[in-house]
């Protein structure tokens, strides 16, 4: 019972909007996980009836290849959510490592790492990602990897700041004098303080990752057919803006609402921290 209450507390937001956002995302995750069960059609299956508007048979209609859009949206959700999670996970891990090392060791190492962070912040990440995609065949793994490797800087700074502030505290000095391993202490005090701001940064990062992946797929440099990503669905829809506007409206809307909900969740977490 206590566990459930703790979970409920963790997930409850004061802000109604954030609450709804969380519910939506959880629903989306479930829908994505159970996509094979929920879809009547294979998302890559070519059909004979193309450009059908939404109907009972096809909840979101069909695209120009006769493929069921609802199935493609659900499988697209898998892509967007996994890219979001994994890219953010990579950036958090990398950022965390750099932040800890930088804050803990200080001195030259700190200086170098922070300058490295500055330089990385100067690179427009999309350029980097585009060039990497140019050199190798674009696919979903490249995308996740590169997004992750170009968005860790914020987390690094956050973690470093936290390490620095904890380092100064008297109990750390005391512990050093007593011969206790400072590393353990740092971890025990840093982690809890750092989780929440990092979580907020992670939500922003995830939103950004989803937007970046859809932009890349839109350009043709992200997820490749036959995988359907909301971004590459928008690319296909361009030619049919007038004949079949739902092809453009629906995936775009999903990107929008997913990103919005993630931002709202971030806001909710921020509010909880500030209490």
């Amino acid at each position, binding site marked *: 019972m206590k566990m459930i209450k703790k979970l409920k507390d963790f997930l409850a937001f004061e802000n109604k909007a954030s609450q709804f956002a969380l519910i939506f995302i959880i629903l989306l995750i479930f829908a994505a996980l159970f996509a094979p069960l929920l879809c009547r059609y294979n998302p*890559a*299956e*070519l059909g*004979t009836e*193309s450009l059908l508007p939404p109907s009972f048979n096809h909840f979101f209609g069909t695209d*120009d*290849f*006769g493929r069921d859009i609802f199935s493609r949206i659900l499988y697209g959700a898998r892509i967007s959510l996994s890219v979001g999670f994994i890219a953010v996970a990579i950036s958090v891990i990398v950022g965390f490592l750099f932040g800890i090392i930088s804050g803990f060791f200080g001195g030259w190492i700190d200086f170098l790492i922070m300058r490295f962070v500055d330089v990385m912040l100067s690179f427009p990440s999309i350029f980097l990602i585009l060039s990497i995609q140019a050199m190798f*065949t674009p696919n979903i793994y490249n995308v996740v990897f590169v997004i992750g490797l170009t968005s860790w800087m914020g987390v690094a700074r956050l973690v470093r700041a936290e390490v620095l502030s904890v380092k100064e505290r008297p109990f750390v000095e005391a512990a050093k004098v007593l011969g206790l391993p400072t590393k353990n202490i740092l971890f025990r005090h840093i982690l809890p303080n750092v989780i929440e701001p990092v979580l907020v940064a992670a939500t922003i990062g995830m939103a950004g990752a989803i937007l970046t992946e859809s932009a890349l797929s839109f350009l*043709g440099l992200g997820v*490749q*057919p*036959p995988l359907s990503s909301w971004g590459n669905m928008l690319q296909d829809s*361009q*030619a*049919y*803006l*007038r*004949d079949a506007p739902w092809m453009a409206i629906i995936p775009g809307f999903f990107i929008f609402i997913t990103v919005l909900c993630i931002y709202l969740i971030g806001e909710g977490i921020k509010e909880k921290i500030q209490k």
Partner: protein
Amino acid sequence: MMNKTTVVFFLFTVVFLFIVIAFEGCQTKTERLTKENTIIFALSGDISILNPILSSDSASSAVEGFIFSGLTKINENLEIVPDIAKSWEIKNGGKEYIFYLRDDVYWHDGEKLTSYDVKFTFDSILNPKVNSVRRGDYIIDGVPIKFETDGPHIFKVILPKPFAPILSRMGIGILPKHLLFDKDLNTAEFNTKPIGSGPFMFKEWIKSERVVLEKNPKYFDGPPKISGIIYKIIPDENARFVALESGQVDVSDIPPKDFNRAKKLKNCNVFEYDSLVYVYLGFNLKNEIFSDIRVRQALAYATDKTQLLNLIFRGLAKPAFGPMSPVSSMFESDTEKYNFDLKKANAILDEAGWILGSDVIREKNGKKLEFTILVNQGNKEREKAAVILQWQYKKIGAKVNIRLMEWSSLVKKLNSARKDFDSVIIGWSLGIDPDSYSIWHSSQYPYGLNFIGFSDPTVDRLLEEGRTTIDFNQRKRIYSQIQKIIAYQQPYIFLWYPKSLVAVSKKIHGLSKPGPAGLFVNIENVYISKDEQGD
């Protein structure tokens, strides 16, 4: 007192105006070309070069066609008619052609065009140091054609044997000797700033943006009635349609799905006509997967052309089965069709040792049946074909990856010596003569148009015979055989014969009869008028 913020704002505005003006000032100025005297064409990909003996893609050829003239040209009935040559004689049993050149042809820089320019052009094509993909067109059975002059207005072509396609090959654009004799043709600046003798002069080429031509007032057939031609490069077919609708371009191809909508446009006339084009999936025959004919045959059986064409064209294209267009007089319809048959496809692959793995992809000797299809980015029909073929081939255990490439770099890749590609969806725009030596002869690899590496001794022999036979019926038999062999071998999977779908602004008149030669055959007769007369 001036607030700091105001100062900053003011500075910003000034900087911007400066940037805008500086930018405009950097661009070359064109003569007064207006909507009333200029035709704006939409191009789907950037041209790659403006040198007729070096270019190999249709975008570049189209533009070159207005800048350069050849000895002969094609009229709207696909007949060969005089251009620079006012007449010609055939002597010596078809082994000698004498062209009598006009005396009133001038280069755009004012110099007179003579037979020495013509000889220079053809010698350059034959020059092994020049990267011309057309060389094979002028070598018969290993013996290059001899080109001679007899005074400034007589040009002679000496053939080792009678050569049926020769007249149609004389239409290639002529280059000015006086500007190129001492330059390396492959890298000359001329290729981006050409001087020709045609009805239009080159004005500017802003890469990936536009090409601008101006009329040649001294054109020997009379100055064109319009002042200029602008090619706007718009790779996205949707954007082209929007540009057409809003009048930003006057001429554009129409995607099949928009054909019906285009017919309702108030500012354009829409044309549908046959072309000498076929689109195919070409296999790199040096690739170990494709060197086995059984794999190609299996893929052919797995190709459901009905579904493909339905989804892409809805009736505006016909399925293709062989290397010639049905418009051609030598078209052979009785060829191996490889009609859609999944069971057969699977059976062939099983027999050839390609075993289905647990990941539903076939494997043989540790190699997966996986390959990449290259498509030119922006051509939506071909992009869609790739996606459809990817799905169809999945059913027989093949994994297809699709890679989009910008047009001129795709062309470059196929023409380069390394040929690092697996397969490609691309088309050929054929000439009026059935001779396709440069595409299929084994000698045309790697420096000709035979970029897939096709090599069949029977076909080689037949190609050589077909060119040197003059009798129509005899030639027809030869080419019928060639088509049968190639259709059987499936070095390409022949996909479709597209119809040309073109929309032209109603203000443009003087178009030629719609046909494979296009609508702008006599560009010098085309004029712009607000009157809405039909034509």
